[in-house]
């Protein structure tokens, strides 16, 4: 058995969350978990967790609780007393989250649920057709609201009625009874949109097993923009975005000339009521007003939610990111228009375009306590200041070298990082790892004919992941330590023709 269970513990929370509440809440409150939210129906919010997923994972890891449990706690605090959350459903695509959410409400159950858990998948398979149709009608309303030019609402409802009649005629109670039906068949009979909904319904969930192929399909959705996938995402907007405007007393051309005023404006922005309440920024829009009356947009992004108030008077993190963005946009623009003198800046607008609302009651929850908290805050601060994303890894119990690890968030606990490797079932893989190289190639490289190794010693025989490979692939790999004429030692396999394939390099 490959370590599927361990691997699932290691992967981050699923990216889409559907939340049902008993009362109507505003967009600002909904942005407690992520700035990307959609008001699906009066009582249901859809939340795209991808911008803040690493942040929540780190927070949960530090507290030793599940991410879903932490998000439920934070959401409850954001709503305050009197408003109850009926359900929270995490899924790979928004459609699945909505379906399961509606199903939970129908059965008066509450979350949080993650669709990668067998219990949640079993619930999804018990989904009834009436619930599926009800959510599909909401989907049509959302598509109409998003003003999709290729959507014919009348035609959609006609196709949906057609499907309803077919379901009754076939005597089907649950969509899961037709799980084998191909979406191409749905497209032929019921049109493009219903086929798409059908394809999303069980993506990643097939007969209770997360098979490699369907899992890949489900997570492919998560990696894409929802707009590209055809899901009618309508971003909820807050009525006022906190911002400050600066009119310069004299035109400026360079970064050094504007730093002092820019820092002052960042402090002013931090003091605005919307941010003073503890909101953290994920993206700032810095609109430069040039003397030629044109505008130039500079986006300042952060990998983790950043508190402007925490760096009041200094604003080092923003200045580092702003300097790079300024150089990339304004100075590049000046270079592109090199045949004329670059237009100087005469002012700017600075807007907090993407914020994570943090309710005052949750501040204590986020307070950095002890050395571990300080470490995590420092790691996040540096992540926000760097030009490139740092990589952190955790080990999973898998015998294949290229699948034996996943990326982890900063601040992971020892048990998370080494957890899979310390459990008894993983000990053979840990022993294997000790005899493997520090660096590996993503794809093994064939050794040229003139580069015959001077020494070769067999070290391990590894089973191939044959079910994910094309037919005819060898079922196993025999690994050797080979030594080149230069004295360099590599980790290599032998091909069927006797050629050497170098897969890694030892320390």
């Amino acid at each position: 058995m490959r370590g599927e269970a361990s691997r699932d513990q290691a992967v981050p929370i699923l990216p889409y969350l559907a939340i049902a509440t008993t009362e109507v809440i505003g967009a600002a409150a909904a942005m407690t978990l992520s700035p990307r939210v959609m008001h699906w129906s009066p009582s249901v919010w859809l939340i795209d967790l991808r911008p803040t997923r690493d942040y929540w994972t780190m927070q949960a890891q530090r507290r030793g609780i599940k991410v879903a449990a932490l998000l439920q706690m934070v959401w409850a605090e954001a709503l305050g007393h009197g408003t109850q959350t009926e359900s929270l459903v995490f899924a790979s695509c928004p459609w699945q989250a909505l379906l399961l959410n509606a199903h939970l409400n129908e059965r008066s159950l509450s979350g949080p649920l993650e669709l990668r858990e067998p219990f949640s998948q079993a619930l999804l398979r018990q989904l009834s057709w009436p619930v599926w149709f009800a959510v599909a009608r909401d989907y049509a309303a959302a598509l109409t609201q998003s003003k999709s030019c290729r959507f014919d609402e009348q035609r959609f409802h006609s196709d949906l009625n057609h499907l309803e009649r077919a379901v009754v005629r076939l005597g089907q109670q649950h969509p899961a009874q037709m799980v084998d039906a191909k979406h191409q068949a749905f497209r032929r009979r019921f049109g493009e949109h219903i086929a798409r909904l059908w394809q999303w319904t069980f993506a990643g969930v097939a007969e209770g097993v997360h098979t490699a192929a369907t899992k890949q399909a489900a997570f492919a959705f998560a990696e894409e923009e929802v707009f590209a996938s055809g899901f009618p995402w309508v971003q909820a907007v807050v009525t006022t975005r906190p911002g400050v405007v600066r009119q310069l007393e004299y035109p400026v051309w360079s970064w050094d000339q504007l730093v002092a005023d820019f820092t002052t404006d960042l402090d002013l922005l931090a003091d605005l009521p919307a941010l003073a309440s503890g909101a953290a920024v994920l993206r700032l829009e810095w609109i430069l007003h040039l003397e030629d009356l044109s505008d130039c947009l500079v986006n300042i992004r952060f990998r983790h939610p950043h508190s402007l108030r925490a760096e009041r008077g200094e604003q080092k993190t923003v200045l580092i990111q702003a300097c790079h963005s300024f150089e990339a946009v304004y100075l590049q623009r000046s270079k592109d228009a090199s045949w004329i003198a670059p237009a100087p800046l005469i002012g700017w607008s600075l807007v907090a375009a993407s914020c994570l609302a943090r309710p005052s009651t949750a501040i204590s929850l986020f307070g950095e306590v002890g050395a571990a908290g300080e470490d995590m805050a420092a790691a996040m601060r540096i992540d926000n200041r760097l030009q490139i994303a740092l990589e952190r890894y955790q080990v999973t119990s898998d015998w294949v070298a290229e699948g034996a690890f996943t990326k982890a968030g900063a601040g992971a606990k020892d048990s998370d990082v080494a957890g899979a490797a310390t459990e008894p079932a993983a000990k053979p893989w840990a022993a294997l790892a000790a005899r493997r190289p520090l660096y590996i190639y993503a794809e093994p490289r064939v050794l040229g004919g003139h580069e015959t190794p001077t020494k070769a010693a067999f070290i391990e025989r590894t089973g191939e992941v044959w079910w994910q490979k094309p037919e005819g692939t060898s079922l196993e790999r025999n690994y050797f330590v080979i030594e080149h004429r230069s004295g360099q030692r590599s980790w290599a396999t032998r091909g069927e023709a006797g050629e050497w394939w170098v897969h890694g390099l030892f320390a």
Partner: protein
Amino acid sequence: MSALQLQTLCSTFAVFRADEVRDHGFKLASGLAVLDDALAGGVALGTLVEWGVPLGRGGRHIILKYLAAANRGLALKADYPILWAYPDSALGLNPPAWQALGINLRHIAFARTNTPMHDLKAALLDPYYRLVVFDMPLGLSRDDYAFLARQARTLQKIIFILHNQLLTDARGNAFAKLRFNCTRSQFDPAKIIVTPVRGLPPQPLVLQLEGML
């Protein structure tokens, strides 16, 4: 320890005697007795060290001993986060092997970049990462070395530069307090020979490492 070695050490680390240094925890020990004794306890905080460690010759085992020691808080008396920068090429990391060699993956962050001085400047200016390793860096200039040495000194970091070729006296580096070449012994593959190029007398140090491939 010879009188010459002691004299060299005293000139390098004039402030503390070797036993004082150990007691105060200002040095990072590798756990390899021969190397630690030669360095009077280990590599002092605030030091830029250059290593000539061609990939695949076993030299990185010594570097990983230092990293594992930093994770365990050996000598430093606290576990310190590590930043390891490596080139953006076809070669990727195999983290299970690092963990098997004693590295705590919780305390190490990796940066895949061909321009580490530009991309990682914020990390070098911040005291958080106390041990920074540049593996096979491309085109570090004299100014870059000066900057690294200054940051190591002012923020009490240890910075290792790992070159994919052996170091020579012909191209010196005044900013690195210590320079070593590491190669596998031709006669006993389980032994690594560390040859000081700068900072210690040039007598080779023979290190016995277990489990090395």
